[in-house]
């Protein structure tokens, strides 16, 4: 078959298309950065996962070490079961802490792993026992109002529904809220 200039142009066209696809994959997409090859899966139970989604990053010290692979609901304990795919290169101690954090004020949610001091490492199928739930903004606000009301009962906010705020108080503990309420004091 004789070669024509049209063949050359079509060849260039197809090569350009392939190069663009490769460029998109490498430069724009996360084909290279998400190159988490071999992974092992561990689970963690949370009472509340907030807005956590499958494929959310799992970070340790701010570095992506894995991804959330699956989120299901456990009907017996009424907890969310989150499966994490973690890079095989990184072994975490058995008493690792799993927290749900938010990137920025209203950004996406991710799981932060804080390594503990145990000698034994997590292996595939293990469960992370120590977890901390997502911070839910509404709970924080109701907690704030509750604290405010207990400070000065004569103010209008004292009429807040105490049942729901009590529940929120139990669910959250007190640590994140103390910092929140401090600047509000006169």
């Amino acid at each position, binding site marked *: *078959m004789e070669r*024509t200039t*049209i*063949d050359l*142009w*079509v060849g*260039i*066209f*197809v090569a*350009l*298309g392939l190069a*663009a*696809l490769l*460029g*998109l*994959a490498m*430069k*724009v*997409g*996360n*084909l290279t*950065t*998400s190159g988490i090859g071999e992974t092992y899966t561990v689970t963690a139970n949370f009472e509340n996962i907030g807005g956590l989604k499958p*494929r959310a990053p799992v970070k340790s010290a701010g570095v992506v070490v894995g991804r959330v692979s699956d989120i299901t609901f456990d009907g017996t304990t009424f907890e969310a079961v989150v499966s994490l795919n973690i890079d095989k290169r990184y072994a975490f101690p058995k008493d690792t802490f799993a927290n749900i954090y938010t990137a*920025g004020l209203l950004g996406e949610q991710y799981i932060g792993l804080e390594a503990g001091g145990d000698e034994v490492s997590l292996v595939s199928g293990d469960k992370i026992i120590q977890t901390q739930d997502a911070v839910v903004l509404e709970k924080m606000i109701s907690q704030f109002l509750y604290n405010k009301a207990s400070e000065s009962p004569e103010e209008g906010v004292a009429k807040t529904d105490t049942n729901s705020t009590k529940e929120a108080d139990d669910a959250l503990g007190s640590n994140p809220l103390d910092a929140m309420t401090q600047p509000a004091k006169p």
Partner: protein
Amino acid sequence: MIRSNILVGLVRILRKIGHNFSDRIWRLGAGARLFGLTLAYSGESFRRFHLTIREVYFTGVMSLIIVLVSAFFVGMVLALQGYYTLQKYGSSEAIGVLVALSLLRELGPVVTALLFAGRAGTAITAEIGLMKATEQLSAMEMMAVSPIARVVAPRFWAGVIAMPILATLFSMVGILGGYLVAVPLIGVDAGAFWSQMQANVDWRFDILNGVIKSLVFGVACTMIALFEGYDAPPTAEGVSRATTRTVVTSSLAVLGLDFALTSFMISM
């Protein structure tokens, strides 16, 4: 009698609606038959693959300039408009994500398909319509050359090959245009622009789904153009009407299919 005149008028309107409707159904069936025939004759046409390559040149390579220039401007406008909204929320670094995702997921495949329908689809319809009007297709049949294998199938496969390539190039050049506006012109940090983009664009869910979309659009646009040309009345007016119908039908088909594909891909 006035009453019977109204009745006759109503019947005439109903008859027209019914005729239009049954005509559409008939055309849909004929189009599906042509699609089946094209697939059936593909093997025969691949034996003369240079015919397909020639058509890739006319539909793909010749559409490059309009597609790339549009992509460049679309990307630049996206960056400007995105920046205007994002800076209100103090997250102008997310502009890279916005430009890349809107181009890869929607604008790349859709705008390319619309441009393709206008640039290449009309050419296909007019060419085949004129071949039919000048009885070239009948002449081929007389020589025992199947016009579907010789004329229709190469153009079909050329469109199917060219569309994903054009859409990928559109996204690439659009992102480049967005980069040029966001980084040197507005002053967004280049590192944040690329790193946010890379963190949020997924190879499988964003890039590959966009390519699948453009493949489907390629099949739809080319098939509509081929059918309108093949079905055109063999007159000057018939060819001109068929060309208009190609653009209208292709655009509507692309936008409708886009909704269906997007909802399907999101639910996956």
